[in-house]
């Protein structure tokens, strides 16, 4: 429904770790593309492949998982488990002919506002070229 131009990116952020970083980016008025939309969830290892595939099917150009990384308050297995979600989804994307690079993950700590903004800018740029 949005009229915003540019590559649309869906971000899965986590309530306690990466979402505060995205808030911080706003607080510091660090700008990133307005076509980045965030849905937050408790932990990055909870993202289902079908949600990601749903986003691609409905027209998102890229999906970014702002992962808890080693900061995860739930468990240290979070990093591995999130990576497994990514690799399983990459397989599904290949089957559907979607370029795997359209799904990205990076650990975003609770104050990583700058890395988040950089990630968004470079991801949007990549998506606009491909």
């Amino acid at each position, binding site marked *: *429904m949005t009229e915003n131009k540019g590559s649309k990116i869906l971000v899965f952020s986590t309530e306690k770790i990466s979402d505060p970083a995205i*808030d911080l980016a706003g607080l510091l*008025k660090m700008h990133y593309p307005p076509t980045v939309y965030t849905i937050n*969830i408790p932990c990055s290892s909870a993202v*289902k492949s079908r949600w990601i595939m749903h986003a691609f099917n*409905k027209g998102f150009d890229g999906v970014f998982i702002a992962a808890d990384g080693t900061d995860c308050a739930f468990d240290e*297995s*979070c990093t591995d488990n999130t990576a497994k979600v990514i690799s399983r989804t990459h397989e599904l994307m290949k089957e559907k002919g979607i370029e795997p690079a359209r799904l990205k993950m990076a650990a975003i700590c*609770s104050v990583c506002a700058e890395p988040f903004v950089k990630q968004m800018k470079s991801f949007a740029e990549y998506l606009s070229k491909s």
Partner: protein
Amino acid sequence: MRNKIGVYICHCGSNIADYVDVEKLKEIVAKEEGVVLAKTTMFACADSTQKEIVQDIQEKNLDAIVIASCSPKLHLFTFRNIAIRAGLNPYNYIQVNIREQCSWAHSDTPKQATEKAISLVLAGIERAKHSKALTTLKISSVNTVAVVGAGVAGMRAAIELADMGTQVFLIEREYFVGGRSSQWNKLFTTDETGQEIVAKLYKKIITYNNITLFTGAEIVSKSGSVGDFDIKVKINPRYIKPGCKLDWAKFEKAVEVCPVEFDDPFNFGLTKQKAIYKNYPSEFPEIPAIDYDKCNKCGECVKVYEDIDLNQKPETININTGAVLLTTGFDPYEPEKGEFAFDEIDNVITLQKFKRLIELNEKELIYRNRKIRNIAYIYCVGSRQLDGENKYCSRYCCTSAIHTAILVKNKYSDINNFHFNRGIRTYGKQEVLYTESSEIGDIFLQSFEDSPPVVEKQGKDTIVKINDILTCGKELEVVADLVVLVTGMVPRKINTIADVLKVPIGRDKFFNEIHPKLRPVETVIDGVLIAGSCQAPLNITESVKSALSAASKANSLISKGEIELEPTLAKIDETICEWCDKCSEICPYDAIIKTKHGGKIIAVVNETSCKGCGMCLPVCPVNAIQLIGYTDVEIESMIEALI
């Protein structure tokens, strides 16, 4: 499906309305199916608006509300309470963040910010439509707090908690209590010494039945969650028989015969320490300790001091606690080799070491066999770094250095103090110290960040040079008998507790609070609180204030016997589940149980153990697991609304 939804769009003064066209936003969302009311408001959090929302919910019989405003981290609970007051289930309230993640982040492109806000609010409405009325889970909590670190902040918090009727386990890594404060002499403003304060607090602590102190102890693991943490504490042996009294003469003999000698960390290497030690005679607990890591168990001490028992073993105990309060303190900044000639010219020392030197020199100030007259203090070492990582100001050092300089001048004769500073920050009432030091003839020389003073050797002399901006940038130099580097505070170097508890770390590497004004002593981990200088550089009064605040927060959190938990739990559809073990394997909380149900084996979630992380969701091969509040229909309808 909810179909009587009220939507409120907050101007947040100008914070949102300056960038997002809130009227346009209102008009668009008002047309959305299921929305029966859409309003804009100056401040959604203001009391009058809150009342209005309550009235709307009741009069219009709303079955869900959406408030588009700031980050839910700020006001989720404020707004949930509105729902509760109006008789609406709080989980039928959805907050949409159009400030931090929209108007502010895209303040450069207002038009696009408005478009994005529309999508975000529409997604919020979708989520509201599918929202369920949920009841919070109540878990029981033990009225116990583990306070980690028995410095002044930790001891003060322990006393306060014990006064409020909470059971306290006070866990100290060192063998003695007092932390950094016991190293300092007279303190501003009361002139009490650090050791006097520590003694006062320790003597009070031992009168409480509900405070248990462990020394030589460290938390090595944690499981469970708020209200019901299980922590394992490793306690190193003291090698002194329990219950015995201190025999000073025998203790001194034992020190004499102990062959293990090393630089004394308490005195920053000014003196030597043995494996058996007390840092100062009146240190608490009274009995000495033998350092578990340093002792070579030669047995010489046992021969002269029969109260020593080298057969003691480290033990690990389990503690069940409702909350953990960290008061683990700071380390002084350790200058790098060559930083203001540290470790290169032998009469360059840190402020903290200098303070110990003063205490160890009763009559005359001597360092490395040289009588000290001219002292150069170099400020902001390790703080306010232009190139280094420590961008922050360490807050206490200006006052501490000036206070020490006045002390030195009063204690010894012929002292000249030269303060090479970058702008003195004796904030508040501490200003009187700065005035006093100027009046007694201390010299202040100032430079900017980018042209710090230089310390160098000229022949036998140590020279400090500066382009002094107080005298129009003249190059001035002082021949110093001693150069004191006014080193700031850094987080503890050995900080294993941070890893064990996963404490969030801020930009300055100190432990991070949730919000400096709203929730200054809490962390994002429920039940883990922080106070004192592990959170930021603070002086003693400030540390005590935060310790007391944390004590009352911890007490009100766990003393009621039960804690309400978010009902965000995994739920397994028993009609789909074909027990495969994948979810129970991945669950970090052992919350998934194999059960027989209606003739087949399925997985069931144990509600009190499940923490709602959702790790089990993606691993289910038949998609039988939904996370309440984050179900497929909620997430997927939001995705559709966003695009």
